């Protein structure tokens, strides 16, 4: 459910991890379990669970991210005892600035030991409850495979300007929806082909930021209006593939290191680099002309972060638009706002 889930461990234990996303559809059954101000993601996945659409899964791993997922893990345990719910609770406070750091590597106090203990606890739970132990050599192989996927996603990312949004979007989204082996094969073959959008289209270039982009409407509208996505800070995008796991280190320690170092989500507290600085450097590196903030309605951490983020963009004279997505909201609003934004960028 979250990009901080240590997929390498699940894979090494013999599971095929699948990330749960919205996938459209009406929400009716979930209304008896969640109040109206729960985010669309929580309501949509709960709906699919209650309908039995997820019965093919052996279990669900909840990663501690936000207040909503924290509650959802327990709601599922109480509403659907047939489901095996696992919890993995990684630290909220990740890296702190080296100036303030108590640890040698800029770690927050106790964070590395705790994260390592949680990774081992997850592996033990898989061994005990699913009879699926995580062996060291299998974990090394899984790490290498996911590293390969992340490297290929980074290459794909560098070529974004030559892909239409509808070409790029399914390739990144499927990273956590299909078996990683197959996804790596698809990425390899896709990278051998030239893109079709071509630089000749020359539409306005955009950087997308937000949580997960699981709504096909946004890439579709961007294409129709002639925009080009050249970079992203999404947890189904660069936050997923940012930073590789060190294959030389002991595997659990290497995983802990990666999850402490990767680009943080707004649910995390870090004093190392403000998120605004990271987005601005992505804007500079990708040459994006404008930033699109994709906010899921009722997603608190992103809504809080949007304020300093848009201030930082304003201060740097980077145009931006905020799209609040809500399954129940009419699609027309997203189109109108994006259209106005793209027109503004072209003038």
């Amino acid at each position: 459910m979250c990009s901080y889930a240590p997929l390498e461990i699940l894979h090494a234990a013999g599971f095929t991890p699948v990330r749960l996303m919205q996938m459209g559809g009406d929400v009716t059954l979930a209304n008896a379990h969640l109040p109206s101000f729960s985010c669309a993601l929580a309501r949509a996945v709960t709906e699919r669970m209650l309908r039995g659409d997820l019965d093919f899964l052996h279990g669900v791993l909840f990663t501690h991210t936000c207040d909503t997922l924290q509650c959802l893990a327990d709601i599922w345990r109480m509403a659907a005892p047939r489901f095996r719910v696992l919890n993995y609770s990684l630290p909220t406070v990740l890296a702190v600035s080296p100036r303030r750091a108590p640890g040698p590597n800029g770690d927050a106090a106790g964070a590395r030991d705790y994260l390592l203990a949680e990774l081992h606890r997850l592996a033990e739970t898989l061994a005990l409850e699913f009879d699926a132990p995580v062996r060291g050599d299998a974990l090394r192989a899984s790490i290498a495979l996911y590293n390969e996927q992340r490297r290929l996603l980074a290459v794909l990312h560098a070529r974004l300007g030559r892909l239409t949004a509808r070409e790029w979007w399914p390739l990144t989204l499927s990273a956590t929806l299909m078996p990683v082996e197959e996804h790596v094969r698809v990425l390899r073959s896709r990278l051998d082909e030239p893109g079709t959008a071509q630089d000749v289209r020359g539409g306005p270039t955009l950087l997308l930021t937000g949580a997960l982009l699981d709504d096909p409407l946004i890439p579709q509208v961007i294409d129709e209006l002639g925009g080009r996505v050249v970079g992203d800070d999404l947890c189904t995008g660069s936050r997923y593939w940012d930073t590789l796991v060190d294959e030389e280190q002991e595997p659990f320690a290497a995983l802990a290191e990666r999850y402490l170092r990767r680009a943080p989500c707004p649910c995390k507290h870090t004093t190392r680099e403000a998120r605004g600085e990271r987005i601005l450097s992505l804007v500079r590196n990708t040459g994006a002309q404008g930033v699109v903030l994709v906010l899921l309605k009722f997603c608190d951490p992103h809504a809080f972060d949007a304020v300093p983020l848009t201030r930082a963009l304003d201060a740097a004279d980077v145009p931006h638009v905020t799209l609040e997505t809500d399954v129940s909201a009419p699609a027309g609003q997203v189109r109108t706002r994006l259209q106005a934004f793209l027109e503004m960028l072209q003038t």
Partner: protein
Amino acid sequence: MTQPRYRKLKTANHLQRLMQWHYASARYLRMGRPLAWVSSGAPVEILRAMGVATVYPENYTALCGAQRQAVGLCEAAEAQGYSPDLCSYARTSLGSILDGEGAPMRGLPRPDLIVACNNICGTVVKWFEAAAAHYQSPLLVLDAPFLHDGLQPSTLSYVVAQLEEMVRFVERTTHHRLDAVQLEETVRLANECTELWGEIRALCKSRPSPLNAPDLFVNMAPIVVLRGTHSAVRFYRRLKAEVEQRVRDGVGAIPDEKHRLLWDNIAIWYRLYGFYNLFVDYKACFVADTYTGAWSQTLPPGDGLQGIAAAYATIFLNQSLEYRAALMVRLISEYGVDGFVMHVNRSCKPYSLGQYAIRRAVMERTGMPGLLIEADMCDARSYAEEAVRTRVQAFMESLAEA
């Protein structure tokens, strides 16, 4: 403002003076002591023992809500880009930072340092980050991982490591040192305070109950903001004496108590009396609640940071829905409750999102009916007067027939 339609406490005047003194001294009478803003679930004993004065933005915003000043401040925050869907304490607080002149008491005094602990919610992390950025104040975030299945040894060591860092953080920012004897004394005072508070709440097991929930909501302020001080201990001794007297005299908080109810979630501050009066009409008294009990956990003495870590990591809102359901079942039996009301609070996701599941479990296990009321703790714009009245009436009529 609507008045309570039940017996007022004589201690009310003392409470008002105590809180006025607290806020005035935080601004004017600190005598050189640095000031920390702290979240309600932060281990204040460490700060107090290190000679740091404290204020609680959550208590301040609740006061703004009770004085019906919160909506204007929320609007000030919304004008700066904060979504109206965010926590109304956070919006009220950020509004008072941005528009200090229009805020009650001109807002809170500027902090020298800020400590936020996420054992109550993730919102305090983002909210206090925003405050720290505004004031350029050093911020320490204490991470108390949520306990889906109780406290693991690795979680405890993690929190202890952070408390050690908290001591270093306060030393770095204030140049004050932690004195072990002072910490022991602060913990002793805090425990005396929480024990008194627990005893006062337990007196409501009597029939009729000497207190109604709004009494508890109002009188919990010192346990939050002055825990670990002599003045809080003195206040709760006085309050306990008055409540004991009521029990001895057989005097109830409301006249002719017929129904005994349990409350779940934060108070509806801007309708503190208006809302609870709806129940008084049916002779129903809220004899217990899950909210004000969050401050009744004592710290193991003589155990230093280890004991403080264990207590703060295991507070009510940091525990599973199953734990919360079991607690409500226990309160229902101990307090002789015959129905419960859950405030589905738009502002508090950790408290509210799981309430449907808890309600089902508690009804199944106790046979008691439970009412859900959707509203907000501070933002009066989310309160649908007529809809609330109709729901309360329907619930109370069915309870009266049962």
